[in-house]
């Protein structure tokens, strides 16, 4: 028997490559100035789903909630072997915190047939690790977090090894289940050349619209719509139109989405002074050492 897997993926700014020039003067980060990448542990989650499919068969759907540019990681997933990709994009999703995000994702996942939902343990832009467990709660299913190995899948039960910090645990749970997968779980496969050839021209509707608008700067709305419809039709014939959903398509309650659905707000953002290798020489005397400690406390380096 095969298993239906849904993998939640996210496009993230490559926070490992932040330098001084991608910071705004107010200390916020210019997201657009950073290269956007496939969140690393989401690739491990995807790989785990692909291995399940290799062994047992079944169907893999990937979903990403994000801006139109996130279509890139959907194509990347198609190159690696998923069956279906969905872009969940809607301006009304903006400013969603982890609770609103997990609500929106749960509405999308509920539209699908699933046995196993897989997420990366955490995303490198927020490092919260909250969306997985919150999504499991919203779906009313069991969660297994920090999974480092899928030990066994047998009928309607799953056995997995999870990292518990100072050791590991083997746990067994009935399906359906949600797993959050760590970077130690596997080595994600690379894109397959054949699939790359097949899907390199796959597009989401919003990308098509953006492309047509750019190519026809003088066209009016109705003309663009007509051209886009024509292009959709052509891609559908070739199986290259990537599915796109908005909040209406997943029947989300708008009061639980975006800003209004987010209990947490940002009070303040401060930039961390980057290690510019700017160094100070401290005299080895009590006054200088004490001033240094004071500075480290003021900078919240010492709690």
């Amino acid at each position, binding site marked *: 028997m095969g298993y239906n897997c849904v993998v939640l993926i996210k496009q993230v700014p490559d926070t490992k490559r932040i330098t001084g020039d991608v910071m705004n003067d107010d200390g916020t980060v210019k997201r657009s100035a950073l290269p956007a990448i496939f969140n690393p542990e989401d690739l491990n989650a995807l790989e785990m789903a692909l291995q399940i499919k290799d062994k047992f068969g079944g169907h893999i759907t990937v979903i990403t909630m994000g801006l139109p540019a996130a279509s890139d990681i959907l194509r990347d997933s198609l190159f690696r072997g998923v069956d279906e990709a969905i872009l969940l994009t809607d301006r009304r999703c903006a400013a969603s915190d982890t609770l609103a995000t997990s609500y929106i994702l749960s509405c999308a996942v509920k539209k699908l047939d699933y046995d196993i939902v897989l997420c990366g343990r955490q995303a490198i832009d927020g490092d919260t690790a909250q969306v997985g467990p919150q999504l499991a709660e919203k779906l009313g299913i069991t969660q297994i977090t920090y999974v480092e190995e899928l030990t066994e899948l047998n009928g309607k039960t799953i056995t997995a090894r999870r*990292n518990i910090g100072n050791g590991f645990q083997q746990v067994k749970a009935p399906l359906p289940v949600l797993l959050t997968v760590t970077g130690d779980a596997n080595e994600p496969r690379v894109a397959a050349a054949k699939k790359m050839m097949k899907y390199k021209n796959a597009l989401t509707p919003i990308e098509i619209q953006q492309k047509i608008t750019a190519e026809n700067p003088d066209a009016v709305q109705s003309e663009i719509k007509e051209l886009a419809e024509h292009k959709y039709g052509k891609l559908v014939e070739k199986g290259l139109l990537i599915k796109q959903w908005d909040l209406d398509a997943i029947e989300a309650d708008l009061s639980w989405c975006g800003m209004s659905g987010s209990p947490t707000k940002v009070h303040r953002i401060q930039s961390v002074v980057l290690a510019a290798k700017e160094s100070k020489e401290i005299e080895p005397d009590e006054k200088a050492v004490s001033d240094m400690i004071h500075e480290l406390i003021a900078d919240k380096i010492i709690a």
Partner: protein
Amino acid sequence: MIEVNRKGEVWVFAEQHDGRLEDTPVELMSKARHLADTLGVKLAAVVLGDGVKDLATKLIQYGADKVYLAEHPLLRAYQTNSYAKVIFDLIHKHTPQIVLYGATIAGRDLAPRIASATRAGLTADCTDLQIGDHTTARDKKVHKNLLFQIRPAFGGNIIATIINPDRWPQMATVREGVMPMPEPDGKRKGRIVEEEVTLAQHDLPLEILEEHKREKKVDLKAARIIVAGGAGLGSKDNFKLVWDLANCLGGAPAATRAAVDLSFIDHDHQVGQTGTTVRPSLYIAVGISGAIQHQAGMSQSQKIVAINNDPDAPIFGVAHYKIIGDLNEVVPMMIKSVREKS
């Protein structure tokens, strides 16, 4: 979610495994005590387990005014659903204004599940907590005495202060090792409130087949502050300076390969190419020359303080604060200064 309740208590989820309290929630007690005092409310610890009443007494010694004790045979081992259910019920019964969890594996597994069920906010992996006011930009409404949940974000490149103005309780997980462990006070008095628990087997969907725990090693990766010593310390006895400085900063002691080879400290503490790679907020290098293999394991630290009597030591090339001097004099000065400030 619960309504804003200014009289609500401050809670700490006192995570325990096999009858032993985790360090992180205990570390949290001193900060939580401070928050409760600032707000003028009671501090309560919440313990779940089976036969763990003795922990309640300890938690009072660590600063709790009250301990909610939920005991049940099905709470013996931690499981997401059973623990989440019990805490969810307690939150709705007692309406605390703040609930804090250690950002341990279990804490980060549990807190989001509770937040989702409660439809309340949650901030992950905080490194500091404060009480403060917030003015909403749109309507200039002032929210007094909110919990400021302070955490690094964007790979540690920014520090964000997060608030949860109206969908309470205000909840956060707090990173391991960022707050100093309080000293127990045997004279403290507090109240133990035994809570009745109703659980059925279906509240425990997981079957724990086996569990392997290693003897707890030092977790250098999770340490926010690391004090590392090198061969320059001279002897195992003198290496105690590293331990002392690490202890007073709430940091972890570490070492170079040279110091480990000289048996000053166990290999678990080794930083560098053949040891652990770390990137703490603060790395204090004591008597370390700074071989490239060592630098590979620590140069990504946010702030580096180096103490060495050799002005040409390579470690100074990556240090933000260079102290050229005798470590036997400088380290005690640092300890003294830290003790005075905290």
